[in-house]
């Protein structure tokens, strides 16, 4: 059984070779996947063109369902963007070095899910062509956006978060880009030359690099938390039952981390399998990720229960009615599926056997994310269906146009990610080297021995390598 996060005897040249190999020579499967993603995007593009020309009608939105899948999926993608930052920044600060082989693709995921999420508020606008009115800019009319509106906060929060995440990803990649530059020819060489910003790996550069990277990490953590809190303000600031909930900011952040971790598990397994990154994306790292996910899932479940209890024992009959409608109303199948996927299914992560079984984890992680997507839908839509005015109660199911655009968003994300893994190193070479170096020379033995001791493995005391040292 593999117990070490990484093989400390791995040769540095092999690391370079393995990672660079993954960026080369896309196989047939890659092109098929890319084509599939583009096809998905085309579905969405066609749907959007239709919706743009005709109006919002074809989306099936109605009075009183002014929002539906677009906003739910927007929140979903925003949520997914959170784990990249979590893994990267928080674990960086607390010096959990097992993040190193997997943070790169997680950060890329952050950026791309933000790029996907950002599309939805735009798509859902009735008059897309005027979307820039949300931004404050000087015009001769002397009018400004409404700074009291959470949607405007969203615009700021998301753009800030996207810029910072992109910078963080890029800065962390500079030493790797230099490695790529040194090994590349043709257009790749030109690209990496520009992008690596003259990285030579000298002391001064490393010193600055460390400092800025740490600063960015410190900056990103509160930013990430605030972004999803602000997104939750879209709902929490409103007066509607089921939206006007005090626990929404932490609830949204927990949900965000949750779906992000689940997505990391999915992509982890895919990359490990297709790029044969078995030596870097090891089972122990997987296990750690799973444990983290489980912890977050429990927090999320707890916050859910709090919300139900607060509503049930609260004084708001309207909110209570809505909760009952969620439990037994027309949305109930989706609601219970969400609770099952979000709160019951994660218990599979508690079992070591299952955690170490990649196909199981792959399927589980997909269902966790399905649960999280349903959660967002169940936040947005039932509230609109059963609000204060009973005359405006209605049930509405999204039309094909909405589904196509949601579907296409996955294609868009997939396409960006596919391009990323072939253009940029999806495992951080220099940091894996650091990790190996650290494990080899500093505390890996201690950690290992502690681990084994804790696990009750008496053999560790008689570890020959320890004696040899």
């Amino acid at each position, binding site marked *: 059984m593999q117990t070490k996060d990484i093989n400390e005897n791995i040769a540095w040249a092999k690391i370079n070779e393995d990672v660079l190999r993954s960026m080369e020579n896309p196989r047939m499967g890659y092109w098929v996947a890319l084509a599939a993603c583009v096809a998905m995007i085309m579905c969405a593009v066609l749907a959007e063109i239709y919706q743009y020309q005709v109006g919002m009608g074809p989306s099936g939105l109605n009075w009183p369902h002014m929002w539906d899948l677009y906003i739910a999926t927007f929140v979903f993608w925003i949520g997914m963007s959170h784990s990249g930052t979590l893994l990267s920044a928080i674990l960086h600060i607390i010096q959990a070095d097992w993040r190193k082989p997997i943070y790169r693709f997680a950060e890329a995921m952050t950026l791309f899910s933000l790029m996907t999420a950002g599309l939805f508020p735009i798509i859902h606008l009735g008059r897309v062509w*005027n979307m820039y009115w949300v931004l404050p800019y000087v*015009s001769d009319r002397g009018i400004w956006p409404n700074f009291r509106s959470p949607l405007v906060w969203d615009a700021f929060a998301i753009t800030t978060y996207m810029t910072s995440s992109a910078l963080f990803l890029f800065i962390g990649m500079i030493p790797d880009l230099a490695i790529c530059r040194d090994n590349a020819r043709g257009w790749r060489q030109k690209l990496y030359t520009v992008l690596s910003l003259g990285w030579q790996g000298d002391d001064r550069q490393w010193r600055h690099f460390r400092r800025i990277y740490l600063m960015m990490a410190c900056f990103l953590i509160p930013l990430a938390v605030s972004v999803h809190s602000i997104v939750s303000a879209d709902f929490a600031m409103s007066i509607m039952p089921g939206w006007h909930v005090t626990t929404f900011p932490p609830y949204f952040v927990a949900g965000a981390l949750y779906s992000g971790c689940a997505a990391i598990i999915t992509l982890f397994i895919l990359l490990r399998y297709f790029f044969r990154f078995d030596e870097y994306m090891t089972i122990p790292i997987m296990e750690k990720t799973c444990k983290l996910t489980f912890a977050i899932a429990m927090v999320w479940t707890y916050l859910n229960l709090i919300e139900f209890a607060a509503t049930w024992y609260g004084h708001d009959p*309207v909110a209570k*009615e809505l909760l009952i409608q969620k439990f037994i109303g027309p949305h109930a199948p989706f609601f219970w599926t969400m609770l099952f996927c979000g709160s019951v299914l994660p218990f599979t992560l508690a079992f070591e056997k299952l955690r170490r079984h990649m196909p199981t984890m792959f399927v589980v992680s997909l269902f966790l994310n399905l649960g999280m997507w349903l959660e967002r839908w169940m936040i947005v839509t039932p509230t609109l269906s059963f609000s*204060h005015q*009973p*005359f*405006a*109660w209605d049930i509405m199911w999204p039309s094909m146009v909405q589904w196509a655009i949601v579907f296409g968003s996955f294609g868009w994300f997939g396409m960006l990610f596919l391009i990323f893994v072939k253009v940029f190193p999806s495992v951080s070479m220099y940091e894996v080297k650091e990790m190996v170096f650290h494990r080899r020379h500093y505390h890996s033995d201690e950690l290992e021995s502690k681990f084994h001791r804790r696990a009750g493995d008496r053999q560790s005391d008689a570890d020959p390598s320890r004696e040899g040292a």
Partner: protein
Amino acid sequence: MSGSDINRRDFLKFMGLGGVGAATLSGCDMPTTITLEEGKEKVVAYLAPEEYAIPGIGVTFASTCKQCPSGCGVHGRVREGRVLKLEGNPDALNGKGLCQMGQASLQGHYNPDRITQPMARKGGALEPVTWEEAWKLMKEKASGAAQGRSAWFTGTVSGHQSVLLSALNKAWGSKDHYVYEAINNAVGEAVNKSVLGDAAPAYRLDKAKVVLSFGADFLGTWVSPVHFSREYSKFRTGDRGVLIQVEPKMTLTGGNADLWVAARPGTEGVVALGVANVLLSKNQVDGKQLPQAALDVISQYGVDKVTEISGVPGDTLVRIAKYLNERSPSLVLSGESAHGHANGYQNAMAAMMLNVLLGNVGETIEASNSMAFDELKAKHGNSKAMLDFAAAADAGKYDVVFFTGANPVYTAPDHLAMAEKVAKVPFKVALSMFPDETTMAADLVLPLSSPYEEWGTSVSPYQPTDAAISMSQPLMKPLSAETKSLGDILLSMLKYQGIKDYEGFDDYYAYLRSELDGLPGSVKAGKDGDEFWSAAVQRGVIKVPTKAGSLKVNLGDVSPGGHQSGGDYPMHLIPSSNQTMYDGRNANLPWLQEAPDQITKIFWDSWVEMHPKAAAKLGVKEGDFVRVESDQGAVEAQVYIYKGVHVNAVAIPVGRGHEEYGRYAKGNGVNPLKILSSIVDGKSGELATHATRVRISKVGRSEELPRLGGSEVQVGRRLVNTVSADVFKRTEGA
């Protein structure tokens, strides 16, 4: 970057600067040229405008609404030569306020499906012709008709149109003028006439403290809804009156009742007798007002028997009697759903008996003030006219028939085979605004101008307190130059017939002016011709002196008539009329198609109302299609389930299911009138619209009901709270 760079098509405004054409008539200009491309809008210079015609500022002109027979006065807001909005005319009899039909009549005026030129049948199809050709045809076919072989088939007519029509019939030697209204109060009028000696006495809702209504939907379609709504407002304020509605299907009035009682269709008379029985048996009132024959009949209808026949619980009867006894004066009305039976006359008579018993005659039922000018009075429509016409047409009595303001081919039941009978008339002329079913069956179609494009006078059929002639004036220039007013066409026909009296008039306008000039000085109040005319046009009404009438009481037989069992057809069919579609004439107005029915909130389609118990028995839920089958045919529509319809009845609204009548009406819903059985009221000969028995079966299809609104109840939220009348009287009572 500029925010004002929004596409022109985003926001269309018709920045009309003036209208085309000389403003010679009051407010009559051609509409502003409307173009949508920026920079291509035209600004129009008037030739010589009236002083009041300021571009950008609306002017108000008075006219009369013709959307239903009541004929309310309206004010039309005119801007840049277009009439934009109608309001109630405060000077007119029905006063400020207008119902939704009146509001939407504007869409009739601007309807895209209006007939814009004469049409004649050539080789089976109607084809556009010129007016010259149309007149030529008239000369050939119509004028050649032998004495007495022509007839007019119209809706309610009044005023000088009626005068001209009579003159024309006289010239042609024909007495046959059928005045038909599908929604009428003819049975009630017959009873009023026989008992009180006055067909349309004044019902004083404002004076009554209890109103017991047997199916009279006076807020919706009965007689004069706007008038009664205003009275209702007074009835409900101060010492608030009680409204009790007895009917098999909840009408708008029923929806506002304090006590809504579902009686088995056709047993309204029995309920009335039962109430009288309770009143008399408990000696709450003495029966000396009633003849002995009536008392004998009443004594036979004890509470138990009435409950057995009508299904109205005994305690409800006692409760009704209690209200009637404790509060006076009261008023008992009967309407459509009580009248439309083989024993409809008896039902109405029983209701009238209650009025007599409670001493309402003279209190809340007053003699109407008879108008001085008999020839101008409205000719009330009824459905017997249609039955008579069908028989006469079938017998080949006519060579020429003129149709206007009525659509018998649509409203006649299938058993009458009206289309075939109309087809038997060699030459049918339709004077019509719209391509309705009757118009499309005609041989010659003459396009009429809308009520807001023409001069005219009319007199409301129901004039409770005052009498007045309502003025119509054009609110704008005709949309189509080819349309003519009915008055003009009648005048031309008279002139053609060589009637000397009419040769001096260029047009109907000239005729009207001279006629009004000729009114006696008492009416003109000392004003000379022009002054009087402009005052009349300005106010929209001419108040005329009245002769005070008087009422007698001569109660007839009040025995309620038999009740046939349904046999194979266990359910009663209620073809309910409501204010949206009325008798079907409003089906071409999109505003009213989209306006939800007041009770069920369903729009754009027909539906079948069923009681939950009946629905459960049949195994249908809301939105399922059911087949409603009578001995005359079947219709299919979706089910709406609620507790406002009798368990043994289904209600289908009248007015949809047109085969013609323009884009909005065509192919939209079903027409329940088509499957009515051939039953007539025994005494008055009126078509018994509510007497049909049907059976219901599932179709197996289901669809979401086109219905506005989600929850039918407030789910405990205080949106509409209800307080008791006692509280209301304590705090706000007079």
